[in-house]
C-alpha cells in the first residue's frame, strides 16, 4: 500500500524529487517571468501611487512565503518529533534560509516602497515590526542548527525552538498591534472581494505568487537533497576514517 511516509526514505525521496525537480524549476521560472513581466510592463499605473505600486509583485508573494515557510518548518518539525523521519527535519533545516531570504526581500521591498509612499524607509508599524521579529527568529533558528554538532540533537533542539518560537511569534504579533497602530494597509488579498486590489493588478499578482510558491518548493527540494547528500558524505568519510 502506497503511503506518503514512504517518501520519508531518503533514497526514495531523492529519486522522486530528482524526477520532479527539473519540471518544477522550469515551471517556477516560466511562471515568475510571466507574472513579473505582466505585472511590471503590462499593467496600468495606479492613479494614486504611480509606478511604485508595481513592487507589489515582489513584496506580497515574498511576505506571504516568509510566513508560510515558517509554518512549513513548524509542520516538518512536528513530524520529526512525532515520527522521527530524518527527511522531515532536513526539510525544515533547508527551508529556514529560504524563509529568511523571503523575509528580507519583503522587508527590503517594503522599505523601497515605503520611502515614496509614506516618506520614510522604516516605521515602527505592527506589520513591519513583526516581520523584523520573524527575521530574528529565522536567524536564531539557523544559528542553532549550525551551532550544534550532533545532527539528531540539533534536529530535536531546533524543532522545539520552532514550536516555542511559533507561539511567541503569534504573541509578538498581537503585542505589537497593541503597542502601535500603524501605517500599513490592510490585506491585499483575501476571500472578501471588497478588500482585494483592483482586477488589473489581481491576476498578475496571483501568477507571481504562484511563481514564488513554485520557486520555494523547488529550492526546498533542492536544498533538502543537498542536506541528505552532505549527510551521506559525512557518514562515508567517517566510516573511511574508522577503517
Amino acid at each position, binding site marked *: 500500500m502506497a503511503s506518503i511516509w514512504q517518501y520519508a526514505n531518503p533514497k526514495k525521496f531523492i529519486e522522486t524529487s530528482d524526477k520532479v525537480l527539473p519540471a518544477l524549476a522550469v515551471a517556477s521560472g516560466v511562471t515568475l517571468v510571466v507574472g513579473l513581466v505582466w505585472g511590471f510592463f503590462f499593467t496600468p499605473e495606479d492613479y494614486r501611487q504611480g509606478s511604485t505600486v508595481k513592487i507589489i509583485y515582489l513584496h506580497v508573494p515574498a511576505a506571504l512565503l516568509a510566513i508560510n515557510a515558517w509554518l512549513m518548518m513548524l509542520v516538518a518539525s512536528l513530524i520529526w518529533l512525532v515520527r522521527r523521519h530524518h527527511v522531515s527535519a532536513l526539510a525544515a533545516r533547508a527551508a529556514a534560509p529560504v524563509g529568511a531570504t523571503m523575509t528580507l526581500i519583503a522587508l527590503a521591498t517594503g522599505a523601497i516602497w515605503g520611502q515614496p509612499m509614506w516618506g520614510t524607509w522604516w516605521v515602527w508599524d505592527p506589520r513591519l515590526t513583526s516581520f523584523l521579529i520573524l527575521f530574528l527568529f529565522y536567524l536564531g533558528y539557523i*544559528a542553532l542548527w549550525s551551532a550544534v554538532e550532533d545532527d539528531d540533537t540539533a534536529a530535536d533542539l531546533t524543532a522545539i525552538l520552532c514550536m516555542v518560537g511559533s*507561539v511567541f511569534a503569534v504573541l509578538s504579533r498581537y503585542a505589537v498591534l497593541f503597542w502601535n497602530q500603524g501605517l500599513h494597509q490592510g490585506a491585499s488579498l483575501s476571500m472578501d472581494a471588497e478588500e482585494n486590489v483592483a482586477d488589473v493588478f489581481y491576476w498578475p499578482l496571483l501568477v507571481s505568487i504562484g511563481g514564488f510558491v513554485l520557486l520555494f518548493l523547488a529550492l526546498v527540494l533542492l536544498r533538502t537533497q543537498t542536506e541528505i547528500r552532505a549527510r551521506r558524505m559525512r557518514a562515508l568519510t567517517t566510516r573511511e576514517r574508522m577503517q
Partner: protein
Amino acid sequence: MRALLLRDLRLALRAGGGFGLGLAFYLVLVALVAFGIGPQNTLLARVAPGILWVGALLACLLSLDRILALDYEDGSLDLLATAPVPLEAIVTLKALAHWITTGLPLVLAAPLLGVLMALPGPGYPWLALSLLIGTPALSTIGTFGAALTVGLKRGGLLLSLLVLPLYVPTLIFGAEAARRGAEGLSTATPLLLLGGITCGTIALLPFASAAVLRVNLR
C-alpha cells in the same frame, strides 16, 4: 527541592557576582543612556520607562548562561536529571532561583534608578509593579534559552540571539504599563496582559525547557 533552591541561592551569593553583577550592569546601563541622550530632564523622563525596562531585560540576559552552564560543567546537572524529582520541577526551581537572585533585586533597584532617569512621580509604583509581574517571565524564558544552549562551547552570544525575540512581548507590555503609569493613565490592560504572559510561560515553558534539557543530556 527546597534544598536545591537554597543551594542555588547560596552558590549565587558566594560565587560572587550573582546578586551584584546584574545590579551593577543595570546601573551602568542607565548611566550610559543618560550620557548618550544628554541631561535634559524632560527628554529623560519621557524615555525613562522604556529604558528602565530594557535595562532590566539586558541585565537579566547577562546572567542567563549562569543558570545551567556551571551545573552542566561539573556534572551535577546529570545527577539532578536522574534524581527522583521531575526535570520540569528542577527547571522551574532554577528559574525561580534566577529570579530571586536577578529579577527581584532589579525590581527593588528600578525605582532608585528611576530617580536618575527623572521618572515622573506617579510612575514609580507602576514601574516596580510591572517589573514584579514581568521579570518571572524573563527568568522562565531565559531558562529555556539556557537549556537550549547548555551543551555548546560558546553559547552566550547564541543564547541572546535566541532569547531576545522571545522577550519582545514581555518587554512591550511591561514598558507600556510603566509608561502609562508614568503618564497617569490606566494601566489595567497592559498589566493584565503581562500577567497573562507570565502565567502562560510559567505554566508551559518548563515542559519545553525540560524536553530540551533531556535532549542535551542524552
